[in-house]
Structures are given as structure tokens and as C-alpha cells.
């Protein structure tokens, strides 16, 4: 069909972001890590900062982030991306520095690093992808795993006795001075995706204005280790996960809000 059409008669409405490389991402089908990536790439494009951006990849399914974003990248150790970002930003204050971290990475081993980067008001942006599970290592419990959720290390479902309680990162960070922007978003419909992108844009704007630390938490589907189809996964996010992790804007340096999505 394309052969019949003269493309010069058309103008682009949406094209692949310049902030993406051509590399094909290795996520499972239906995994929303890719969606989160795409939104970040679009925001970098729109803000026109790609060439001065440094992406800090973490350790999780998104470990190859450095292959996907078309900018300078540093691959950090598990949990330490905010410390690495601090080092980069202190040496290169003109760079736009962001980390991309999973919930195991950020909320388990790396909790101290993210809280302290926030308290230091480091001018960095954290993209926090919460899929309630350790994806890369094959589905173990994460701090964000929900009560009752079965994982490979909570085979009888997470309980107070086996695994303890679910950690809420945005709620925690909302108590830290030094945070300029803080929001939680979901990716389960086009409208919500646009809201998520809006939050990402605000987070980067906070950094560009030197307002301090910014973080956007994105509830993300891991169909593989949730043992669900993507549709079941999206429903679970909307109906179960958001009950523990309500979307919202927790801190906004332009005027603080607990605004809903």
C-alpha cells in the first residue's frame, strides 16, 4: 500500500524520538519499561536537551538503558545511580542528568542513596519504574511487592511475617526537604500516559531551573513475573496496585500540591 502513496504529501504527526538510538529494546512484549523510556525520550526531544544530557543506567531489566537513549550514558552499580548522578552533576553542572531505576534498585539496595541525593537537593531527575518485583533476577520480592503477592521469594504470598510491608517511595520522599518535584503516575491508558509524560516534563524542568531533586514514579507492568497477560497486568495496576500506590503529585516547586492525576 505504501508504494501507492506519495510521502511528500504527508507531514509527520509522530516520529520516533531523536533521543532514542536505533537499538531494539530487549523488554518482554507488553512490558511498560519501553513506554517509560519512550516518554523520557520524547521529553528530552521537546526540551531540546538531548546533547547535554547524561543518563545514568541502573541494574535491573533496564540495565541496557545506555543502549537505548541517544545521549551520554553511565552504567551504575545496583542501587547507586543517584550517587553516580551526583558525581556527574557536580563535575558537569550544565549537564542534564537523570537516573532510570527499578524498584529493587531504588527502594531496596539503593534506598539510602536516593533519599540522600534528595536531601542534598541534587539537581538531578530520577525516573523510578515500580513493577513491584525484581524483574531481571526473575521475579523475587521487591520492597514494593504488595501484601499477598506471590513471588519466587514469597512463595506463600508476601505477609507481615514473610517479607514485611510494602514500601511507598513517594510518600517517604515527600518528607525530604530538597525535593522540588515528586509525582506518581500510571501507564495504563493513553490519557494516563500523557499525564505521566507531563510529570516527566515537569521533573526535567525542575532540574533545568535548578530547583532541586525531582522524581517521577511510574507504576509499570511486568507481565512475565506477574504471570499475567498485559491486559490482566494493566487491570491489576489499575485496581490493586494503585490502591497501595495512589497516583498523584506530591511535591511541585511551582506550588505544592497533592493534586491527583
Amino acid at each position: 500500500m505504501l508504494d501507492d502513496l506519495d510521502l511528500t504529501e504527508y507531514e509527520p504527526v509522530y516520529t520516533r524520538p531523536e533521543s532514542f538510538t536505533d537499538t531494539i529494546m530487549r523488554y518482554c512484549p507488553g512490558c511498560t519499561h519501553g513506554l517509560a523510556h519512550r516518554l523520557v525520550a520524547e521529553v528530552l526531544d521537546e526540551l531540546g536537551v538531548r546533547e547535554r544530557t547524561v543518563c545514568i543506567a541502573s541494574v535491573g531489566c533496564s540495565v541496557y538503558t545506555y543502549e537505548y537513549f541517544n545521549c551520554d550514558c553511565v552504567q551504575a552499580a545496583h542501587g547507586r545511580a543517584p550517587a553516580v548522578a551526583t558525581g556527574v552533576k557536580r563535575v558537569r553542572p550544565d549537564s542534564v542528568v537523570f537516573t532510570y531505576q527499578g524498584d529493587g534498585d531504588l527502594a531496596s539496595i539503593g534506598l539510602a542513596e536516593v533519599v540522600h541525593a534528595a536531601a542534598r537537593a541534587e539537581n538531578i531527575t530520577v525516573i523510578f519504574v515500580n513493577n513491584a518485583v525484581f524483574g531481571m533476577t526473575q521475579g523475587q520480592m521487591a520492597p514494593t511487592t504488595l501484601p499477598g503477592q506471590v513471588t519466587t521469594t514469597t512463595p506463600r504470598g508476601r505477609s507481615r511475617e514473610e517479607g514485611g510491608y510494602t514500601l511507598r517511595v513517594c510518600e517517604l520522599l515527600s518528607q525530604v526537604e530538597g525535593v522540588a518535584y515528586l509525582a506518581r503516575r500510571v501507564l495504563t491508558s493513553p490519557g494516563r500516559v500523557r499525564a505521566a509524560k507531563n510529570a516527566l516534563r515537569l521533573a526535567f524542568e525542575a532540574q533545568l531551573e535548578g530547583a532541586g531533586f525531582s522524581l517521577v514514579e511510574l507504576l509499570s507492568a511486568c507481565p512475565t513475573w506477574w504471570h499475567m497477560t498485559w491486559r490482566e497486568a494493566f487491570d491489576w495496576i489499575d485496581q490493586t496496585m494503585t490502591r497501595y500506590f495512589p497516583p498523584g503529585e506530591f511535591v511541585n516547586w511551582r506550588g505544592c500540591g497533592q493534586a491527583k492525576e
Partner: protein
Amino acid sequence: MEDRSGATRKLMSGNEACAEGAIAGGCRFFFGYPITPQNAIPEYMAEHLPEVGGVYVQAESEVAATYMMLGAAAAGTIPMTSSSSPGISLMQEGLSYMLGCELPCVVVNMVRGGPGLGNIAPSQSDYWLATRGAGHGDGRCLTFAPYSVQELHDWSAEAFQVAARYRLPVMILGDAVLAQMMEPVRLRPRGEAMSLDREWAVGGGLKGRERRIVNSLWVVPEVMEQVNLRMKARFDQAEAEMVRFEEVGDEEPEMLVVAYGSMARVAETAIGWAADEGIRARLLRPISLVPFPYAAIRVWAERVRLVLVLELSLGQMVEDVRLAVEGRCPVEFYGRAGGPLITPEDTLSVILSMAGVRRML
């Protein structure tokens, strides 16, 4: 101040001299976490780095400090941290990452008594950690062990050039004696900040260059092997260029004494006394521990009756000495572990008894 020789020298602690040496050597980014006996280093940096446009960041932990270094090194600087034994243990993963990412940095370890919390007394029991450490994998730090406050100052400055040249972590191995001892120091002038413009440096804009990736993940084993072989090549080059040691004492010794750092200071005095007692001893003092002066020791091993290794530990460097000697003559060890100092008097009696035993043979 000016001493009688007209030289301007300042009485300084090892910690201060180390910090000022780093600034003189071009250090502008320091990431640290307090721990005795090296607190004066981060404190000095917090006070003085801003004078030269530098940045001191107090990290939340030694783990974080190491990864701040990683980020800073990725951005093109040669960053620095300092700590003491337990903190250095916490840096092991990060040092391995520095090696995996092929990034340079400078790490100071003012060793204290261990294991565990131990104490803050002088000790040399981190020799293995310093020479076989840097976490998992085949890499290690280039390691240098000064033995005076002046040398600490100088090596602290030089370390930045060495780290940059070999693109490797450089460790300055001190101890609670060197850290806290005060001696006159001829200060180096403060040099320019080092350039950030390095082949691997991220940040600073993509204009006119490809994007850069600093990374230690190499899924394909053969690619990972290349990283290791590159690292080994840089080590081999350092091995050829950076072996440093000093010798003092008898020219035709019956006994070679090997000691480094503050223990070498003690040995130096004891060897003088031993000469008075008619013992022909010579001190070989490794300054570079990695690369180790194997060849120099091997040469003496052919000519002496005995090699005596002195350490403030249960015996760690003695293995490197044995690797150098390879059975050419007996290698004896004397050490104490956990903080008790070895005095020149102790050392003399060890030398005398060793010499006595050998003479009777």
C-alpha cells in the same frame, strides 16, 4: 615557615599534607565520609577545596562516596576519596566498578587495627586489601606506601598523574602513624585543576563528538575479556614504569630487611643500631606495593643469607617477598597485629636474634 636551611617548610600532619598534596596535584572533587584516623582529610577538603573552585561532598556512606567518584570520573575528573580500613572494605564493590569502567581515581587508606571495628591504632593489616583487593574480578589498584609526611604530600599529588596515565584507581596506603604524625613539609604549589577533557568523559555536550558510554556490563564473555586484557596491559605498563623502592644500609649485607610505610621508618633506625652491633643489614623499602619490586628483592636474595620481613600485621607482604625470593634464601617474618607498635628497640632485637641464629648455622 623558613627553617635554618632557608627552605620554607610547614609543620603539618600527614592527613593535612595528604589533602594539600592532592589539591596541589590538581584534585578538585573529593567525596568522603569521616572515619578516624583520617578525619582531617575530609575536613581539610571541606575547608580548602572551595578556595580553588573545587567541590567537597560529604557522602552518606563510603559506598556512596565511591559511586560519586565513579560518576565524577566518568565526567572527566580524577576524583578522590579517603577512608580507613572498614570504610575501604565498603568500597570494594565500587573499586571493582571503577576498574570495570576503566576509570581512574585516587583512594587514601589510613589503615587502623582490625578486623571489624578494631581500633584506631597503627596497623598494616590491609596489605592484601590494598594489593589483592579492589573487590571481585581480576583488577587491582596501583598502590603506593609513603613513609614520611613529605612523601605522603608528594605521592598524594603524583597519584593524580599516575591514575590518569594508567586509567586505574591509585591507592595511597598510610596508617594511623603517618596520618597523625606531624613533620615539616615543603609544600608543592597548587597546580591548575586537571582538564576534564578525556577520551571517555561524559557531559559537556555532544557537539562534534559521538555520544559516550561508561559501562562495566559486557554480556559477551569475549568482549569482557578484552576489557580485562586492556586492563592487564595498562598494569603491565605500570609494572614496567612505576616500580619504586628505596634502599639504605650495608652495601654487602648478610641480611635484607623488607618493610614499608611507617614500619620502614622504624626499621631504618634499627638498622643503624644493628650496624653499631656489627650486623650488616640492608633495608629495602617498597614504595610501590603494586607494582611490587620483585626483581630488586630477587637480586638481593641471591646475595644475602636471610631476608627479614617486618610488618604491622600477621604477615601479608611477606607473601610477595616469598614470591620474589622463590626459595633462594630463607624468608623470616616478624610482625604484630591489631595495633601494638613495633619499636626500633624491638626491631633491633629481632634483627640480632635472626643474625645470631643464622650465624650459628
